[in-house]
């Protein structure tokens, strides 16, 4: 099985989630501090979309990490079985 590309690994996904999350937070703060049409509409549409994307990236990172550990465990398990033979 080929290893996952670098950008799909947990640390990269978490870093991406943090960056996207910061953009989302900036738009939310702008919507509150600059209460005019465009910032408010932007915060409640694009901003919240980015926030959801950041959270999904974080969840993907957790899944990727769990899968990575599971694969590593199986690999180690297979090696130890062959060693015992």
């Amino acid at each position: 099985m080929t290893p996952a590309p670098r950008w799909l690994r947990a640390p990269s996904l978490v870093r991406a989630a943090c960056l996207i999350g910061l953009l989302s937070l900036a738009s939310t703060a702008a919507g509150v501090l600059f209460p005019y049409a465009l910032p408010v509409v932007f915060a409640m549409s694009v901003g919240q979309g980015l926030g959801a994307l950041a959270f999904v990236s974080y969840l993907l990172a957790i899944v990727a990490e769990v899968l990575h550990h599971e694969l590593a465990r199986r690999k180690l398990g297979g090696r130890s079985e062959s060693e015992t033979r």
Partner: protein
Amino acid sequence: MALPSSALAWVCLLCVVVSAAILVHHLVRSPPLGPRTKLVLALGLGLFPGLAATTGTVVGMQRTTEREFCGSCHVMGAHLRDAEDPASTSLAARHAHNPFFGEHNCYTCHADYSMIGYAITKINGLKHVYHYYLSGYRDQSLEEALQQIRLYQPYDNANCRQCHTGRGPLWRKVAEHVPLEAALDSNAVSCASAGCHGYAHPFSKAHQGAALDDGAASTERAP
């Protein structure tokens, strides 16, 4: 920039700051993805941004009902100035001076009060933003805007009747009301027309020429 006056807005900003601190800390330090880091990130990417989004939405929705927000686009400048002018006797200004309407006078009179009225009002608000930024209203002078901008539909008399009964003995005492009852119910005649209680925003009618002579029902038609 305006410092928020509502407690909810401060809660939103607090959540933003806490969340941003967690995310920046993770980006700078890059700690290993252990259980503690995962939990802290769940707070920084889930709980606090969720709270910020919820409170930010409530604050934003409340803000969109304020007169200052409606007047923040220059094409509404004349409407805003008229409503805030203590010397103005236009229907809109008289309502704006009433503390029951107060800062929310645009929304109170123009909101749709049907079952899904809130959603419809907000969708129409999004249409306004679209027209302002992408459909050319932003580049129009105030004079041009006053000539062209109309309500999407004729003004609904039911909005007047939220406060004015429109059926009581005092209302019936006015000789013109009773024969117009059916026409008022169907919005064929507007309460806010020249021959009745006067235009809500009379200065805009001067720019609309024919609309003045068009009779009561033509008050602020859709484009």
